[in-house]
């Protein structure tokens, strides 16, 4: 049996020069609207004291988490973790663009496309993956800062890169319920632990929270009460039997 795939990115921050060719390639490949982008490069700024200065750029996109908080809140299952590839995807024909998942993402890796009324995000260029190609951002990266592949395959480019890396960092986040997001994006050969790229606690909109903690208990109590009521009467009816004529 073929092993389950776990696709993800390895980003060698020591090789990124913030040229943003990946942003352009991604937008062109995925027809992303001019106002939006699915991937970012975060500039952590100049650090250190002259003359020992350094500056790190962190290419950034959906982490394709093992435990994505975004899929937990999607009401319809329009956003889901794909069983075959492990990629976190949005079925835009099912999505209504309410933005629950945008709030819940600890990495701000999703956005609302207001023109199309849907949520959009990095898909790992699954359309290219299906025909055996690498994502557009990866093939276009001149410095080879971006790598993509299956972490479950020890011979894959990403697994080899992880093995040879000087440092490995992962923006893991412990969720309120104790589980970890376990992102499938690994940053190697540099320091990315900076407040600018740190994940935040998933936010839940007022509508979702009141639904969960107010409406569900109230309405289910009503349903329970009415069910119990009719069950009592039905049991009584069964025990007493039916009269031919009503009095």
């Amino acid at each position, binding site marked *: 049996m073929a092993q389950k795939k776990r696709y993800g990115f390895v980003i060698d921050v020591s090789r990124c020069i913030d040229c943003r060719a990946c942003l352009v390639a991604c937008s062109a490949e995925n027809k992303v609207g001019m106002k939006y982008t699915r991937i970012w490069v975060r500039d952590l700024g100049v650090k250190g004291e002259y003359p020992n200065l350094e500056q790190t750029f962190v290419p950034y996109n959906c982490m394709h988490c093992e435990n994505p908080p975004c*899929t*937990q*809140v*999607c*009401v*319809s*299952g*329009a956003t*889901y973790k794909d069983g075959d590839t492990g990629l976190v995807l949005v*079925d835009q*024909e*099912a999505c*209504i*663009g*309410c*933005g*629950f998942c945008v709030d819940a993402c600890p990495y701000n890796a999703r956005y*609302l496309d*207001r*023109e*199309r*009324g*849907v949520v959009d995000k990095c898909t790992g260029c699954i359309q290219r993956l299906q025909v055996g190609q690498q994502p557009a951002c990866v093939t276009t990266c001149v410095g080879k800062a971006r790598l993509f592949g299956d972490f479950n395959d020890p011979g894959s480019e990403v697994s080899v890169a992880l093995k040879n890396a000087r440092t490995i960092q992962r923006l893991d986040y412990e969720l309120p319920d104790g589980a970890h997001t376990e992102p499938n994006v690994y940053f190697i050969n540099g320091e990315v632990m900076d407040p600018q790229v740190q994940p935040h606690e998933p936010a839940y*909109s*007022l*509508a*979702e929270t*009141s*639904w*969960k903690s107010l*409406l*569900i208990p109230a*309405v*289910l109590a*009503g*349903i329970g*009460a*009415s*069910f119990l*009521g*009719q069950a009592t*009467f*039905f049991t009584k*009816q069964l025990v007493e039997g*039916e*009269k031919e004529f*009503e*009095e």
Partner: protein
Amino acid sequence: MSHKTIPLAERKRLRMKMIKKHQLANILTHWFNVGMWLMLLPTGIAILSSPRLGLSPDWVQVFFRNVFGGTANLIRFHYTVGLIWAIVLTFNILVGFRKYFVPFSKERLLLSKDDVEWMKIKPLQMLGFMKGKPLPPQDAYNAGQKLYMYVVILGTVGIIASGLVMTFHTVFPPFLKQWAQPVHWASVFSIVAGLIIHVYMGAVFPEEKEAFFSMFSGKVSAWYARAHHSKWYWEKVKEELEWEDKVTAEVESSAKPAEAAHAGD
């Protein structure tokens, strides 16, 4: 006079005599509603798959997604049927507004003093108290039915409004789409809470058996009407007597000119 003291022969006569309770248009709309709800409720429950809310079991989600071919198709089916339901219902109400909706609201929906009294006594009686206390006479619909009708009307407005927001998601702001989902769910399941009793009372509960058949024939027996909806029953009797008087008067007045003409010969 209580219906319990009626002599046997009169009871038999009342059982045989049928009076009209529901108009055909209402009956058809009711069963149309049933059919649409049978399609919409299961698919709607199956759509709800947020693990955080935990509103439907996994197997329901998987089963319906397999039957319909994915989430998008399941949602498409749900909102297509939903739109048909909303359009037909709105059409029926608009076309029948003066002939059905206004009289129905006026004569059968408004709560009277007796209804308020009923609401005080009935819940206690169901819990086993005040068994001896007689219930006030009820209209064509009792106070419980009337209350549920308000839930249904408000719920239906909520369902249709929030459903439209989610169906036409490209034109509405995210804020509305976020609230449309809990509103849709709460409206549906407020109705479902009463629906459990509605279906049980209508189809299973022995004393209300006539109510079930009346949703096909439109008619209930005078006995049932007198026992369960006495206010409405006496109203009907009064109407019938008035109608008889009117017909008698008409026959007499049309007979007189003929006599007069005869006398003139």
